[in-house]
């Protein structure tokens, strides 16, 4: 090994090691910060629906936020899947390598580049009045509105990976199916989808993970009511949103409870991503 080789090696080693330290440090400080909350409330912290920050009556529970996060994210995924799936097929199968497909896929990728706050603004001034106009909810804020915004935000994540996987399905397989007299729909559902399912499912899981942590747009639209939503059109709050709203003034037990919520969010996101990796491995 010559000198420059050695330097490169140490440099790369140091870089990757640093990331490890940062990640470890984050987990360490999250756990450390969350200890007082778990010490005070025990496992009850996760199941309690009570969030009372009033001085002298303090009591904190994460359930309203866990529920809000899960409901909005699942809703977002359910809304985005039909759109993402159709877009993937459009771009990678029906209109593959045509100008219209490349325009569409560029546009979808562009969605990923729009800052969260812009989605929030659009949701606040355009989507919310529309929801009110439809009479779905008296103030337009809530789980449903947030779910729609999240769905739009995660479409690029759900499509980009699926596109690549669908393109990779061997042409021979498709041609064989066509030569047997299969219709286009039969080819899609009997050849392409089974072949590409690991990538498709994985991309939806990644999109779901992205929805879990989204903050700004949701804060602007969910209504920030610290309770478990009673219906799809009720107001609620999410884990990321309550942290963003309240960390500024938080102190003592409240700060610890917010950090504990951060830790729970971290764990949920990590679990979802691990599940994604596992599914890819299992299916491919």
């Amino acid at each position, binding site marked *: 090994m010559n000198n420059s080789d050695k330097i490169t090696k140490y440099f790369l080693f140091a870089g990757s090691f640093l990331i490890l330290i940062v990640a470890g440090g984050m987990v360490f400080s999250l756990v450390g910060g969350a200890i007082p909350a778990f010490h005070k409330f025990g496992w009850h912290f996760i199941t309690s629906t*009570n*969030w*009372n*920050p*009033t*001085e*002298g*009556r303090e009591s904190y529970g994460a359930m309203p936020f866990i529920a809000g996060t899960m409901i909005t994210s699942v809703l977002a995924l359910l809304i985005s899947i039909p759109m993402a799936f159709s877009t993937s097929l459009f771009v990678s199968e029906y209109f593959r390598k045509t100008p219209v497909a490349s325009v569409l896929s560029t546009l979808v990728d562009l969605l990923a580049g729009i800052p969260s706050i812009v989605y929030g603004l659009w949701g*606040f*001034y355009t989507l*919310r*009045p529309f929801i*009110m106009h439809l009479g779905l909810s*008296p*103030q*337009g*804020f809530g789980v449903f509105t947030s779910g729609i915004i999240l769905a739009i935000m995660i479409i690029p*994540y759900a499509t*980009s*990976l699926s596109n*690549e*996987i669908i393109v990779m399905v061997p042409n021979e397989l498709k041609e064989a199916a066509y030569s047997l007299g299969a219709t286009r729909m039969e080819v899609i559902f009997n050849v392409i989808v089974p072949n590409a399912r690991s*990538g498709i499912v*994985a991309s939806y899981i*990644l999109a779901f*993970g*992205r929805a*879990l*942590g*989204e*903050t*700004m747009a949701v*804060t602007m639209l969910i*209504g*920030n*009511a*610290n309770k478990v939503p009673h219906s799809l059109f009720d*107001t609620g*709050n999410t*884990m*990321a949103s309550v*942290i*963003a*709203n*309240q*960390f*500024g*003034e*938080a*102190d003592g037990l409240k700060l610890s409870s917010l950090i504990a919520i*951060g830790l729970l*969010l*971290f764990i949920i*996101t*990590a679990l979802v*991503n691990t599940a*994604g*990796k596992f599914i*890819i491995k299992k299916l*491919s």
Partner: protein
Amino acid sequence: MKKILILLAVVTAFTSCKSGSKKKGTDEKSAKTEISLSAAGSTFAGPFYKTAFKKYFDLTGVQTSYGLTGSGAGIRSLKDRVVDFCGSDAFLSDAEAANMPAPVVHVATCSGAVDIAFNVPGIDSIKLDQEVLADIFLGKITNWNDAKLKAINPGVKFPDLAISVVHRSDGSGTTFIFSDYMSKISKEWKDQIGVGKSLNWPTGMGAKGNPGVAGTISSTVGSIGYIGSDYAFAQKISFALVKNAAGNYIAPTIAAVSAAGKGDMPADTRIMETNSTAPDAYPISGFTWIILYKEQAYNGRSLDQAQATVKLIDWMLDPAAQGIAKELKYAPLPDKVVQIDKAILRTVTYNGKPILK
């Protein structure tokens, strides 16, 4: 396959780092030669402070940045010593003051009304008594055509429209004033919810800061909420006349807020003036304070910095600054409160020596 994993890793990293990136610290330490002050806190007093600090910059060249973070976050910033002073509409309780790293002093800067602002098409003015007000914010009255509302507002044609309560989502001095008043007029409120900068709300939705609540009310038909007077005025939002302790329906005017502030003032200015017994007082009024450390030599702050801080706050009590408050719908301080404030400012020291002569 490898590509997928790399993508996966990137997205994982992205999603896990994404949660909670908002707001910047307000400490801006600039060059020593040019004094600049930084402060944060109350959005309720925000319009007054922003205008007054700008005027002070024109007069003296001392730049003051003021972050509209909400009183709760302002106090937190003072505690962390990242600001020179903070604005708050809630004074520190004895327990909270003891929790600060060093003794602090409160300087009242003006008083203001918390308006009960609402958005119902075609209705500019309504009256609210104690019971109806409490029932609305407790979630017991849920429609604008409620019989109790109609009974105290003869002649007003209420539509069949759901009431959407809007409250603060962050720690707020405005909430403190509002909940202090509610606890005085409703036993149910006192027992169930209590007084605080943030509350366990039985109904409604949260918005951040006075601007957030004002924006939500003005864009949501059927909503009602509480905001600082200037915000209702600036955004042309209708407000309610509130029945005071003497039984009169009072609009949140400067005169009505001044009337509420005429009572006795303790030497540390820490007093709530809600639910005043004066016959022409607006009942949801409150002082707003600047809070600073009594000993200004900390964190390596220079004498110049300390002097600039105290001089600015001293100037806020001047007729010129108080006139700005009046223009922005706040009630200027009565003379006796100005005297108490000045006495407090004279106790502020740098290395034990008083800063003001």
